[in-house]
């Protein structure tokens, strides 16, 4: 097992090299001109300024040279300098990644707990009113666009009834807790600052729920269908023939089997949300990777786009690795070598 994990970890840099190369080439092939992001429009006609800017950002070098420089920097952990923030992309991302991770982790917890509970209950009481309600709730979560459900919930719970505060990670003019994990909720607890923890938690609650609702939908349907399938299989009949009551058949026999497909979806969803929480971040002014990516793409900020791509790829590769490990743990028929 350990050898397998090591081998997979060794593979990651090579896969990243591929990702970096493709993303570099793709960004070169786009029609947009990065100079537009760097040079104010009225100075575009001044060749001296344009050439100076080109030289400053290395845009005067031929493509292969730029590629080699890019990869060389990448190996040293240098993702380049953002055209628009004029700061190292790595610094930008390091600052924003914890916000996204906190949001995504919270959403995954909400989605997994609600999805498992609803999936279990609707499989147990399939065909009843509860089953229908749970399935509709799941369907809405997974099909409503977040820009809509997010706005509606924000309006209802923040504007109309002030159940939760507005957007952002903390109220304005409140200082973030000392940085340990980058998760404001966790850091506030570490600092022993309970009021700050509650503030951070109440800011996190709504965006995490909106994102978690979408996850709930996917998980509920998967869990429900895997469980119902499991209940019709031979091993379930065996359990009943042993005298097991139906809920034991469901929880002790069908559920462990349903965990196998669930783990795959969880890993994939988590990785996807690292860069896919864009809409939630935009609506709730959440200073994460998603909103950074949108801004980078809109302003043709190639270094930033490349940086986000790399971060997203690392998230996918690590999530895949963790999924495979969890999969082997949940499914005794899988042996990793």
């Amino acid at each position, binding site marked *: 097992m350990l050898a397998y994990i090591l081998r997979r970890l060794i593979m990651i840099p090579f896969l990243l090299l591929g990702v970096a190369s493709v993303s570099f080439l793709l960004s070169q092939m786009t029609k947009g001109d990065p100079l537009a992001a760097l040079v104010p429009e009225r100075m575009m006609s001044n060749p001296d300024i344009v050439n100076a800017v080109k030289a400053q950002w290395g845009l005067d070098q031929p493509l292969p040279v730029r590629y080699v420089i890019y990869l060389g920097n990448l190996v040293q952990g240098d993702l380049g300098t953002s055209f628009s923030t004029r700061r190292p992309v790595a610094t930008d991302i390091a600052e924003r990644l914890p916000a996204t991770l906190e949001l995504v982790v919270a959403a995954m917890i909400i989605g997994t707990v609600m999805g498992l509970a609803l999936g279990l209950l609707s499989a147990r009481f399939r065909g009843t009113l509860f089953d229908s309600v749970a399935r509709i709730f799941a369907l809405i979560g997974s099909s409503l666009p977040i820009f809509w459900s997010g706005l509606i919930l924000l309006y209802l719970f923040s504007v109309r009834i002030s159940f939760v505060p507005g957007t952002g990670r903390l109220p304005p003019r409140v200082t973030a807790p000392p940085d340990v994990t980058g998760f404001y909720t966790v850091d506030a607890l570490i600092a022993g600052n309970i009021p700050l923890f509650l503030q951070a938690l109440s800011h996190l609650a709504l965006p995490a729920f909106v994102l978690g609702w979408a996850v709930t939908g996917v998980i509920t349907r998967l869990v429900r269908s895997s469980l119902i399938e499991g209940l*019709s*299989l*031979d*091993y379930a*009949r*065996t*359990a*009943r*023939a*042993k*005298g*097991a*009551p139906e809920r*034991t058949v469901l929880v*002790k*026999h069908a559920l*462990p*089997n349903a965990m*196998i497909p669930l783990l795959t979806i969880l890993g994939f969803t988590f990785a996807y949300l690292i860069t896919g929480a864009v809409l939630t971040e935009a609506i709730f002014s959440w200073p994460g990777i998603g909103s950074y990516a949108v801004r980078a793409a809109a302003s043709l900020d190639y270094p930033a786009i490349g940086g986000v791509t790399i971060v997203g790829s690392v998230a996918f590769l690590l999530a895949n690795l963790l999924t495979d490990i969890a999969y082997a743990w*949940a*499914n*005794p*028929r899988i042996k990793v070598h």
Partner: protein
Amino acid sequence: MTAPLLDLRDLRIEFQNADGVRAEALRGVDLSVNPGEVLGIVGESGSGKSIAMMAFLQLLPKGARVTGSAKFRGEELIGMAPARIRRIRGKAIGCIFQDPLSAFNPVLRIGDQIAEAIRLHDRTVSRRAALKEAVDLFEMVAIPQPERRVHQYPHEFSGGMRQRAMIAMALANRPELVIADEPTTALDVTVQAQILDLLADLRRDLGIGLVMITHDLGVVAGIADRIAVMYGGRIVERGPTDAIFYDTAHPYTAGLIGAVPTIDGGGQLRQIDGTPPSIFGRPPGCSFHPRCPRAAAPCRTDDPDLRPAGGSRCACHFPLVPAGAAG
């Protein structure tokens, strides 16, 4: 004569398909099993042999309507409350299923699955004690290295060992009746013989009643005291094993016997032409008549009742042995 352990009277099962069409899968079955007796139930797929047993254990999917009577130790099982029949399932009646690979839960250790069977009926037994019990059961069914084996998963067992483990699980609570549904069908021929020997030994040592469901007359020939042959949801012949083999009355039974390979027989195996009828398209009259070499006019219209014939009882207008008092 002692009171039967299991007594089925006019057991019927009706299914409804997705279009609302109703069909009778079991059409009035009378059977009994005495304590310590082995009853073989023989028939092709779809003859109703397995669902007859699953029906009174209430293990059929929802939508199956079961009527008639099934008394176990004098207690009616049809319509029994789920909580009560659960205390009988796996306790007084054990089940062995056809394919032990799919019948075990693939993600749970075999020992834990056997321990569960014990603890479901006696919460006072600790997990550890139940696992110890599983080791003893493994010894009883001759699984080598039982201490190590109980910690393994189903896929780590060979087919024969898996079926031994399945038998161990069925016997976990010392049942009075064991229902073995095609226990050897998924196994190699040599392993089949070993499992049959094991079942015969256990039955003799423990004095359990055993119902052996199979499509292969050869499987029950050496072990069953009595045999019931089923076709199209009914019993077409039943009687003592010797009478079934040496005094065969029903043409269908004769066909099944002809299809059993023998070592000295040589020549070609005889097959029964045609296929068994679907429960949604059963022919009128005797359901075997389209495939029967002796079929005549009454067979196409009248479904015959079980009547004494030779040493057994047979549902046929033209039995192979003269009708007579027996059964």
